[in-house]
């Protein structure tokens, strides 16, 4: 099992181009005209979006699991 992660955006780098939403296999990212949104419950921790971002605006952080 890959490590469970959350995706975070660096808003100062992001252009809201929608590419991350396009490559996401599970619709876990929504790009609205007013902002970027991550839907944790849909994410499968594949990190495809992190690599695909043309400007490196996305990063993966380990998801804290409650003990």
């Amino acid at each position, binding site marked *: 099992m890959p490590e469970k992660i959350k995706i975070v955006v660096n808003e100062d780098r992001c*252009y*809201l*181009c*929608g*590419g*991350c*939403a*396009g*490559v996401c*296999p599970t*619709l876990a990212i*929504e*790009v*609205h*005209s007013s902002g970027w949104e991550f839907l944790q419950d849909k994410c499968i921790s594949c990190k*495809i979006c992190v*690599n*695909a*971002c*043309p*400007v*490196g605006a996305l990063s993966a952080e380990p998801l804290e699991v409650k003990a």
Partner: protein
Amino acid sequence: MSWKYDVVVVGAGIAGPIVARNVARAGFSVLLIDKKWAIGTPKQCAEGISIKVFEKYDIPYDKRFINREIYGAKLYSPSGYELEMRYKDVSGVILERKVFDKMLAYYAAKAGADVLARTEALDVIRKDGKVVGIKAKHEDEPVEIYADVIVAADGVESTIARKAGINTYAPPHEFDSSYEYEMLIEGFDPDLIHLWFGNEIAPRGYVWVFPKDEDRANVGIGINSDNPQTAKYYLDKWLKENNIPAKKLLEINVGVVPVGGFVKELVKDNVLVVGDAARQVNPMHGGGMAEAMEAGTIASKWIVKALEEENLSLLQNYTKEWWETDGKRLEKVLKVRRVTEKLTDEDLDLFIQILSGADAEKIAGGDYGEVIKALLKHPKVLLSSRRIKLLKELL
């Protein structure tokens, strides 16, 4: 609020307005929506397009969205060999997408379509399992848009198509990551587009200079989206290595481009997917405007027929016709891309070197078979079984 139309089109890029215009011309009610508050802005595009599309898709040749007419292309290999293809007549233009897209939406509106900017599609509305419309938001106001036919022209994100149950998945290797400056740049013939190839320069893709003026151009790059480095990294590296100052930047554009994995089933019941959302992009060069126009034209033809004959099952003909025509062509282009991405820098140097000495007229004429034959005749190719194998895959 709740509205009812014959057709709702989500996305006012290239494909969406073409569909909306053609459907409106046939006399049906259509609403074209886009989440952007200014249609056309921002763009994800290098803005180059063939001169042929204006007549073919009935688009006025309006100087308001044409920055510059282009007469050909110049290709550069990793070590600097050059191949120039120059035509007597204009072969293409560099558009201003923020004007062009808006004008396409304007043509749709003039033809009778309603058009609403800053209207974001959020989800589909289902009734008895069937999609009957979309939930949207105009500014902050929720709206329900009911329609007999729903067209997802919503770009690379393809959200509405996917929510409607159309499988638009493509693996990460089938996307390009792109980054582009519109900037002042000198020293390149402004009548040609310029393309640089090389595995260190632009993995799987190329760097481009598309002139919009004598000294102003879109300078961009596309690389495979599963590359660990960013497109921005590679473009900035190329500019630095070539001592091109990036100090006069007028615009920055970013995007992810589907370059393979065309959507198989383009229609699900009464929902159609077109353009980038359907991955209908040329996998070789990453351009998708002409492909979107073609798909939009085929889609709208079958939407009109289906509505006229009150038989929505006719919509399936869009999938069939697209795959028999442009889909077939693009599948071939995809095969070529998969071969060319195996080329080493030495291969690229050699091939461009050979072709620059070959029959330029035939190459410029786009006689693809002749190009491969010219390469296959060369001793350095004949002595490499790997190169022969690669080229034969292309024939």
